[in-house]
């Protein structure tokens, strides 16, 4: 939820334009995995700014804590120990909503205005409109939204839309001690990321690259990866994510067409009646049974 109201590019389950007179610059949060030290300051800052508190969990023998995103933990650090050509590498990825340009959650959502996309690219849940069906979870190619057991609403990273609206950077970017998370316009962030990729390549990471998957129209959270050719090694980051064909089919043109077909069926029945008339007992048979009425 946020303050913006005049710069809505898309609104879930809405077939007419939303207020979109105001045009804001496309923003991106760039996460440079190669700079991340896994301190979890971003996790703490996220909870601090958004005033969410997760339950105290148990130690699973790894640094991941909590073990997965929850309705209270909108970002978590994912730690992967991976053997690469360089030997054992410890890859740490800050997981959370990618703020897709083509958001599967918004496409799947049946509740008008429960998910909006601002012209700055942020995809934001408006929980007061959420009906708790979980279709966004079905639509998301990154497995991000989490249904709260407390209120039956779905939660995820807002990219601090409330902070961004007043010219601040997201809480995680603000707090990151190594500069692994930076925030700015998409153009600036791509420029910055290209510099980082060049630096990594000069230091032997031949496959370093930017993660901004086109299958979802690009994202407003981008990664710099040391091994951009194998995003899967970063705790299963999808290589070529896109909104599933099943979701496109489910939410595509077929439904309005089917709705028209059903309406046509009703009209067709009515016109069958007025052209062919009712199916009655014939005069002949009526005569046979005239004793009975």
């Amino acid at each position, binding site marked *: 939820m946020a303050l913006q109201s005049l710069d809505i590019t898309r609104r879930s389950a*809405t077939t007419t334009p939303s207020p979109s007179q105001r045009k804001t610059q496309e923003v991106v949060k760039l996460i440079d995995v190669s700079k991340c030290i896994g301190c979890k300051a971003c996790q703490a800052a996220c909870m601090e700014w958004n005033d969410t508190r997760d339950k105290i969990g148990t130690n699973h023998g790894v640094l991941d804590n909590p073990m997965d995103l929850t309705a209270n933990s909108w970002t978590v650090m994912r730690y992967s120990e991976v053997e690469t050509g360089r030997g054992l590498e410890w890859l740490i990825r800050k997981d959370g909503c990618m703020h897709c340009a083509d958001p599967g959650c918004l496409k*799947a959502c049946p509740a008008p205005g429960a998910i909006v996309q601002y012209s700055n690219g942020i995809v934001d849940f408006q929980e007061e409109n959420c009906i708790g069906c*979980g*279709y966004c979870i*079905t639509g998301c190619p990154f497995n991000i939204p989490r249904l709260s057991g407390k209120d039956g609403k779905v939660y995820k990273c807002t990219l601090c839309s409330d902070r961004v609206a007043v010219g601040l950077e997201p809480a995680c970017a603000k707090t990151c001690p190594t500069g692994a998370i930076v925030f700015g316009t998409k153009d600036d962030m791509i420029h910055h990321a290209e510099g980082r990729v060049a630096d990594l390549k000069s230091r032997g990471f031949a496959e370093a690259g930017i993660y901004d998957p086109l299958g979802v129209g690009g994202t407003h959270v981008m990664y710099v990866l040391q091994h951009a050719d194998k995003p899967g090694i970063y705790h299963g980051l999808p290589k070529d994510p896109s909104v599933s064909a099943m*979701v496109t089919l489910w939410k595509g043109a077929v*439904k309005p067409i089917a*709705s028209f077909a059903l309406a046509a069926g009703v009209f067709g029945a009515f016109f069958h009646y007025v052209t062919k008339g009712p199916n009655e007992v014939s005069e002949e048979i009526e005569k046979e049974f005239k004793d*009975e009425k």
Partner: protein
Amino acid sequence: MKNDPKKLLRFTPMERANHWLTAIIFFLAALSGLSFFHPFFFPLTQLFGGGVWTRILHPFFGVAMLLSFGGMFFRFKQQNVITPADREWLRHVREMAGGDDRNMPEAGKFNGGQKLLFWLFAACMALLILSGIVIWRAYFSFLFPVEAVRVASVVHAAAAAVMIALIIFHIYAAIWTRESIDAMLYGRVRRAWARQHHPAWFRQMTGGEK
């Protein structure tokens, strides 16, 4: 008199009650489900106390439908076994719809169209129940991989659209064939009606009289 004993008993009180219970639950399930089908129908959630209530209630309507339709299924399935005569009836269905019943083979208690509809209802119901469990987020979806939930979402929407189309057809056929709604409301039909629409059943009921 509605229930003149000279009339033929077509549906027992329990059959009628079961049918109308199913009909009522169908409307609850269809109207609540349509609100998630396309944004155009979302205002239907107002009938059920808003979006959240509609989301909560719809799957339970499905459970009620499973029980009520399930009852109907077992009550009527024996009478809906499709015979060669029914296939012949279905081959001539266009003539029937055109108002010409001269070439129609004699229908039993249910004609070929009614029987086919019965099995299509059953197939749609099975698909709706199975896919409905998979997409019931509050209790079951976490048991299934996301791709299964996606497929189930498509199956559920498609089966629902087909089911609604079949019901539109079913209701229209009942309006078109005069007095058949009375049969389901009051249970008995005039002998002339039976002779006209279900001659084989008429003979069976009257022991071949007339």
